[in-house]
């Protein structure tokens, strides 16, 4: 009797010791040292004037600057515009393309491939290629438009247009990922729904609106969240194409962080990081909560 009661916990302990907690350790060390600790430290250093060797506490001056200096405010606004625009276009185009590519269309394999390949290609390479193609006078895009008698705009040289041009290239590169996520979502919708609606005499439009769209919701949530996070943090494409220019009209927070770092304003650069962090958090956390809750209600 007493032997049995002793044996049970021991067996359990033995089973549990097959999953030792030190398995967390290698990952935890790297993560804590190079991600977690710098993140926590950034909260302090963002409040300082910092030279890497010594830091002078200056309170919220860096943050005040972010909301006062016109070029920094512009960066904040641009980040929002860029993220919302790329995310919105990826959702709409990705969904429509996925519907098209899951229908009985010819050359599906080819279409999926050409759509997805840019996802895997170097962002800098894509950025440079499009920068050359978007040249206002000798670029391929405007020369082609010229053949139709259209005078193409200065895609990257017009201050009002540069950010949108980069965002379009971002969509060009990323829409393939949104599409394959949507395809996975649409393919997982049980076929019975479509069979039932066929019996009810529903049109293709009804199917699209009342079955595919609502039941692809998990995919929509994923695409929105992924592309918003990516869009808010976006740096390499903007840096490869405009470096934030002309002037600072296409600067985003990530490029401001880099510029301030290069200029040696480490405290201000770190404050930029914290601003970006807060921005991502206050957009993504409530949004994913909201979107997922809605999903449960259905």
């Amino acid at each position, binding site marked *: 009797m007493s032997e049995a009661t002793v044996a049970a916990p021991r067996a359990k302990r033995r089973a*549990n010791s097959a999953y030792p907690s030190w398995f*967390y350790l290698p990952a935890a060390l790297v993560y804590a040292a190079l991600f977690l600790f710098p993140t926590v*430290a*950034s909260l302090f250093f963002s409040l300082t004037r910092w030279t890497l060797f010594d830091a002078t506490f200056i309170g919220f001056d860096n943050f005040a600057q972010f909301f006062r200096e016109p070029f920094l405010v512009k960066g904040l606004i641009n980040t929002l515009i860029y993220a919302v625009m790329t995310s919105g276009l990826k959702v709409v185009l990705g969904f429509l393309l996925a519907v098209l590519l899951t229908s009985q269309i010819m050359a599906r394999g080819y279409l999926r491939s050409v759509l*997805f390949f840019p996802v895997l290609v170097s*962002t800098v390479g894509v950025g*440079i290629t499009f920068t050359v193609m978007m040249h206002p006078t000798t670029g391929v895009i405007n020369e082609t438009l010229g053949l139709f008698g259209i005078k193409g705009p200065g895609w990257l040289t017009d201050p009002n247009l540069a950010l949108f041009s980069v965002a379009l290239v971002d969509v060009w590169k990323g829409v393939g990922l949104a599409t394959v996520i949507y395809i996975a979502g649409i393919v997982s919708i049980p076929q019975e729904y479509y069979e039932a609606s066929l019996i009810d005499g529903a049109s293709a439009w009804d199917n699209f609106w009342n079955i595919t769209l609502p039941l692809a919701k998990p995919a929509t949530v994923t695409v929105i969240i992924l592309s918003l996070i990516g869009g808010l943090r976006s740096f390499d494409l903007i840096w*490869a194409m405009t470096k934030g220019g002309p002037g600072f009209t296409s600067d985003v927070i990530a490029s401001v962080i880099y510029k301030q770092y290069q200029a040696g304003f480490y405290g201000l650069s770190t404050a930029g*990081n914290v601003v970006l962090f807060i921005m*991502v958090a206050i957009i993504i956390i409530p949004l994913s909560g909201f979107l997922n809750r809605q999903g449960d209600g259905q």
Partner: protein
Amino acid sequence: MTYLRRNWIGLLAILVSTVVFLVPFAFIVLTALKDKRQSSLREFSLPNGFHLWDNLVEVIQTRNYMVLTAFVNSAILTVASVTLLVIFAAMVGFVLQRKPSAWTGLVNFLVLAGLIIPPAVVPTIWVLQGLGLFKTLHGLIFIEVAYGLSFCVLLFKAFVVTIPRELDEAAIIDGASPLRLFFEIVLPLLRPVVITVILVQSVAIFNDFTNPLYYLPGTKNVTVQLTLYNFQSQYNTSYNLLFTNILLITIPPLIVFLFFNRQIVAGMTAGAVKG
């Protein structure tokens, strides 16, 4: 005619997608084939001769064979960080799924934090300097591991669920140590997700531009993405060389794409359906 009418959407899709998605790549290839004078016109036109080989030789010789060094560096970076990522993340995913403990909640929270929080750049440089890892390749390897862990842990955790616990128990009864259980029984069964992680992370790390820019500055340790960036100003007038370089660094992703298209799409859409 009826064929055309029935398939006009398909034909239109093929036409539009070819123009929108293939023309930029064709532009890269065509420009890489041209000589300096013709490429400077930035036209979408056939090259007046085959100059790819000359361009290739010139790009490779630029700045003392910098491109070759960069390819070696990128290869080391990619292989080392992906190897560490697979092992570290699989260990975490395994224990996280198998043994609920006081740590589980914290670990789950940290995994999500890693996905959402943008890395704090300058403090990271400060830490790297303190550790003597700034401007070193192994420093960057650990950075890539730290930033990639969250995504990989999520994938592994989701996949460990599908491995029956009975296998663990059988191994434990046979006296297998935790390490043997993990490396000889569980990890081989995780093969599909290991392949996914290898592919997705390899492409991401090979293409990474921002982290080498911050944590591995200088010309000694360049990675391929940085050579492109450095050459952008140097090749200001030699578009043939710039695009030959772009072509060169597009080849590794192209190979991955040609051979593992299905797996990489599966990896990138993992979790999308479950939400």
